[in-house]
């Protein structure tokens, strides 16, 4: 009963437009005060929530990707991929998905991925006659790969909340991420085959390909270094983010030098850090406030009650996953990614052990459902990104995302029947 009241009040606060951080923090505070527990837990939570070496990866990965972005790497990646596959049927659409996947490997955020690729891909695809809803849907969905393919900020937060290994989570996301990208590409191919309204791009010459690929290569090298560093255990995720940042600075300096610009631009680094700082603070404020809320919820024994309710009504893991999926899809209409994660995971986590569900697998499963939440109306951050970047009507964007939501749900089913897709890389070798 308490759980229902708490959830209802939380939803009411959120729908009243209270920022997610303060809806969680304020409600947590009120619950503590109501139970006569010392409010000293509030500043302690605010401190211990940020004072965490693993979370340092959040600003560092954000800084790395904003430096690369300001350095124009988004265009370079897209140009390079397009020079190879652009002339295929549906080639531009395929190039867009591959660019999203590659950019995901240097960015931990869906919104950043969608925004970056949208800027270059939307005008190009529209000029070639691709129907707008398809273009918007493709990029909104492609952008969500950002949180499945490592590095991933939501996976870092999941790891911190559940105290699971972040390197394992990162590795577990790789295969599902690539499969999902493959699914999007397959859909684009089929779409192109049954529609002939767009003009294909001329095949790029070998000289063009070489030039474009050489420009994109250093960025791919950064992604490979991060992945190899984490995979081999040479770097912690935080350290790999630091190394990635250092490499990003060097790469951007090199690219600027090649273009005949002054290699060091303090303006670029300042603007990149301004952007990264603001995003970090909005994210970490939610994380710390969720920590206070989590404390309060635990003191009211809500996770145990929920676990009890679940284990008495649901006996097998399959039904559990089905129920959780439906709940997450519904929540995803209204909540954005991080708040979904921070509200639901602490409450459900105790039930996982009872159900014999692997927490790493659950993290990846959760990410895919969060990806759906990012593109399901009325609240889906990636929809808003496309709306803003492409100056499109929300209705048009929404019309285009449904096939991709279907593909993502297919991936959830696949992952449920073949958990090895996620667990093979971290544990299977």
């Amino acid at each position, binding site marked *: 009963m308490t759980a229902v009241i708490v959830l209802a009040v939380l939803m009411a606060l959120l729908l009243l437009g209270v920022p997610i*951080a303060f809806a969680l923090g304020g409600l947590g505070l009120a619950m503590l005060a109501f139970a006569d527990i010392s409010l000293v837990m509030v500043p302690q939570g605010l401190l211990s929530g*940020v004072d965490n070496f693993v979370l340092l990866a959040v600003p560092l990965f954000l800084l790395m990707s904003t430096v690369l972005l300001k350095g124009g790497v988004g265009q370079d990646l897209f140009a390079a991929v397009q020079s190879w596959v652009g002339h295929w049927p549906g080639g531009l659409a395929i190039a867009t998905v591959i660019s999203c996947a590659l950019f995901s490997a240097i960015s931990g955020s869906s919104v950043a991925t969608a925004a970056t690729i949208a800027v270059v891909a939307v005008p190009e695809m529209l000029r070639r006659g691709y129907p707008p809803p398809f273009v918007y849907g493709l990029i909104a969905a492609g952008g969500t790969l950002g949180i499945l393919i490592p590095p991933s900020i939501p996976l870092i937060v999941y790891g911190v909340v559940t105290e699971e290994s972040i390197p394992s989570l990162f590795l577990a996301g790789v295969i599902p991420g690539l499969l999902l990208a493959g699914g999007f590409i397959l859909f684009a191919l089929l779409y192109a085959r049954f529609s002939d309204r767009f003009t294909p791009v001329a095949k790029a010459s070998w000289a063009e390909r070489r030039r474009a690929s050489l420009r994109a290569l250093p960025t791919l090298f950064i992604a490979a270094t991060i992945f190899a560093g984490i995979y081999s255990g040479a770097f912690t995720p935080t350290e790999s983010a630091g190394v990635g940042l250092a490499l990003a600075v060097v790469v951007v300096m090199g690219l600027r030098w090649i273009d005949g610009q002054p290699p060091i631009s303090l303006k670029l680094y300042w603007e990149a850090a301004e952007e990264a700082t603001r995003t970090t603070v909005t994210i970490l404020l939610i994380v710390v406030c969720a920590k206070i809320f989590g404390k309060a919820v635990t003191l009211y024994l809500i996770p145990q009650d929920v676990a009890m309710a679940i284990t008495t009504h649901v006996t097998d893991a399959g039904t559990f996953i089905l129920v959780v999926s439906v709940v997450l899809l519904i929540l995803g209409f209204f909540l954005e990614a991080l708040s979904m994660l921070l509200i639901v995971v602490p409450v459900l986590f105790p039930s996982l052990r009872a159900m014999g569900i692997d927490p790493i697998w659950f993290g990846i499963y959760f990410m895919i459902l969060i990806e759906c939440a990012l593109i399901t109306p009325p609240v889906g951050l990636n929809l808003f990104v496309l709306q803003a970047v492409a100056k499109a009507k929300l209705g048009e964007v929404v019309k285009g995302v449904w096939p991709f939501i279907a593909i993502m749900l297919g991936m959830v089913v696949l992952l449920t029947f073949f958990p090895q897709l996620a667990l093979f890389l971290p544990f299977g070798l």
Partner: protein
Amino acid sequence: MLRAGLAAIDATARWSGRLAVLLFWVIGVIVVWEVAARYLFNAPTIWTEETARLVMVWGVYAAAALVLQERRLIAIDAVVRWLPPGLQRVQEIFVLLVILGFSTVAVIWGIGIVQESLAVGRASATMLRLPQWVFELPVPIGFTLLGLQALARVIRLSLGWEAPARSESAL
């Protein structure tokens, strides 16, 4: 007089935010230093981890007020955007009062833990033995700035100096 006070609050948030931007680069340098020290110079450090954490705590709370000023806190506006402007003003004041209330608690109890750490001379349980209050101080300072920013906007909205605005958030 009142306008000058409100402008001063805004300016403090902006400067504090700029400090945070610098601090986030400092974090980058510290972490890179750690990796370089371990792999290139074969001399792992004892100060980098804790210092980087400390800098992040200061950085996050130094920029909190700026993020509120720029309306970048992530909020759900699917419902409130349909409210008539008059109600939107009331709604925004309500939101800011929630933030102000939370900040007040964070400041009062935050000062409490700083005082306690100073009184008993508490230090971090690491090799550096930094005094604990150095970590705790940014919470009351940051939420003072945040609370003042919320208060400034409540005043402006109530006096009609500022139109209610939708949040611009990105993640």
